[in-house]
Every structure is written in C-alpha cells, then in structure tokens.
C-alpha cells in the first residue's frame, strides 16, 4: 500500500468527522424541525455550517467510494470508524468538552481495531481487471 492510499483512508475519517461536526453545529443554530413542518428542513441547506458540512460529506463519499475500488469493505470500514476518534479529539481540544474515561476507552478500542487491519493486505478478492487499466 502506497502513501497515497494511507492518505485516502485518513481523508475518509477526517472528512466524515468534520462534515458531521459542521452539520451538528449548523442544525443546532438552525433549531428543531417539527414533523408537521418537515419541508422547512430544506431551508437548513442555506445555513453556512450545513452547506459546508454537506461539502465535506461529499468529499467523504468520493474518497470512500474510491477506497472501495481498491480495498475490501472489511478493510475500509474500520478506517471510517476512526472518524469517531477524530470527533472525540475535536470535541476535547477545540470545543473543550469533557471526555469521560469510558469514551477514552472507546477511542482506545477503535484505534486497536484499526491497527489490526492496517498492516494486512487491503484486498483479499481477485482483482477484476479494469478495462482502461489492463496491462498489454
């Protein structure tokens, strides 16, 4: 696995974490939406935080899909879980929230889980030759 692929996995986790954080922040300033006024929720897109959050989630989706094109699902998924760790770190060091010991244990378990697959080969299924990428 080359460095670009490690960056792709880090990107998945980082984009997901930043996107979720921005959405949460945006929806908090936007306010609750009653089920009877559900169409009102489309106006939330105009909130700058929500707008930026959607942009980051699009970046998440495209890096996620590109990772799935060269790696197994069981390899990529633990990496996506790393976004929970990023969210906890953002909450602790940027938003100065208190993280309970139980949550730190969660961070530790996810990190260990990601560590289990990080060193192993990323794909276990035979590669279907990409039409454009076929070697002569």
């Amino acid at each position, binding site marked *: 696995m080359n460095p670009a692929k490690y960056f792709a996995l880090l990107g998945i986790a980082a984009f997901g974490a930043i996107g979720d954080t921005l959405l949460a922040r945006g929806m908090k300033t936007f306010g609750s939406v009653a089920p009877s006024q559900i169409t009102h929720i489309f106006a939330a897109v105009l909130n700058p935080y929500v707008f930026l959050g959607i942009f980051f989630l699009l970046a998440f989706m495209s890096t996620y899909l590109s990772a*799935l094109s060269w790696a197994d*699902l069981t390899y990529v998924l633990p990496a996506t*879980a790393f976004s929970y760790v990023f969210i906890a770190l953002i909450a602790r060091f940027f938003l100065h929230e208190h993280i309970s010991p139980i*949550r730190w244990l969660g961070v530790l*378990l996810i990190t260990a889980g990601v560590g289990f697959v990080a060193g192993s080969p990323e794909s276990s299924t035979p590669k279907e030759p*990409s039409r*454009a*990428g076929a070697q002569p």
Partner: protein
Amino acid sequence: MNHFYAWLGVFLIVVTSTAGDCLLARAMKRVGDLGAPRRQGGLGQTILRVLLTPSLMIGICFMALSFFSLLFALSWGDVSMVGPASASLTFVANAFAAKLFLHEKVDRRRWAAAVFVAAGVFLLAG
C-alpha cells in the same frame, strides 16, 4: 411497545445500511481501481462511469432507506440507545455480509477489528 418499535428500527437500520455498504463495495469493485480510468478519460468520465453502475444506485437507495429507518427508530427510542446500538451492530453485520456476499476473506485479524471497532463505537456513541 415503544421498546419493540425502537429495536425494530435498529434492526431495519442495520439491515438496510449493511445492504447499502455491500452494494456500494460491489459496484466499486466492478468499476476497479479508479487511477487508470482517471488518467485516460479524465475526472468527469470517471465520475460518470461510477454513477452509471447499477448496484451503486441501488446501494444509494438502501442508504436512503437506512436514513428513514433511523428517523423511525429515533421517533420511538432515545438517541443514546439507537445511535450506539445501530452503529456498532452495523460493523459486525458488515463483516458477515462481506464474507457471505462479497466473498472477502475475513480472517481472524479482520474479525477482531470488526469486534473491537463495534465495541469502541458503542462506548463512544453512548
């Protein structure tokens, strides 16, 4: 009864999001490594090729179903139960589904990763 509906919602989230993830993975595996088509046809053509893969579209529909299942579950249960339960169970369900439907070799390291991550997510999201 509220409890039953909340867990029914969690079950629906796990099933639909696992199906969605597997379909996306299958679609991308079929498209193959994106590096080569991007060098040959440019970014626009690569995006078009990905978007026109049928299992990708079905996968996205399942993702949408999972989002509505989440809304359903949240309307019956607390977010502190629905969030961690659905997120962590999805990781384990995905390992099973990847082995069954995508024929990935889920060895001991990958099982351990799925279980550790599921446990960690459960503690963090709670």
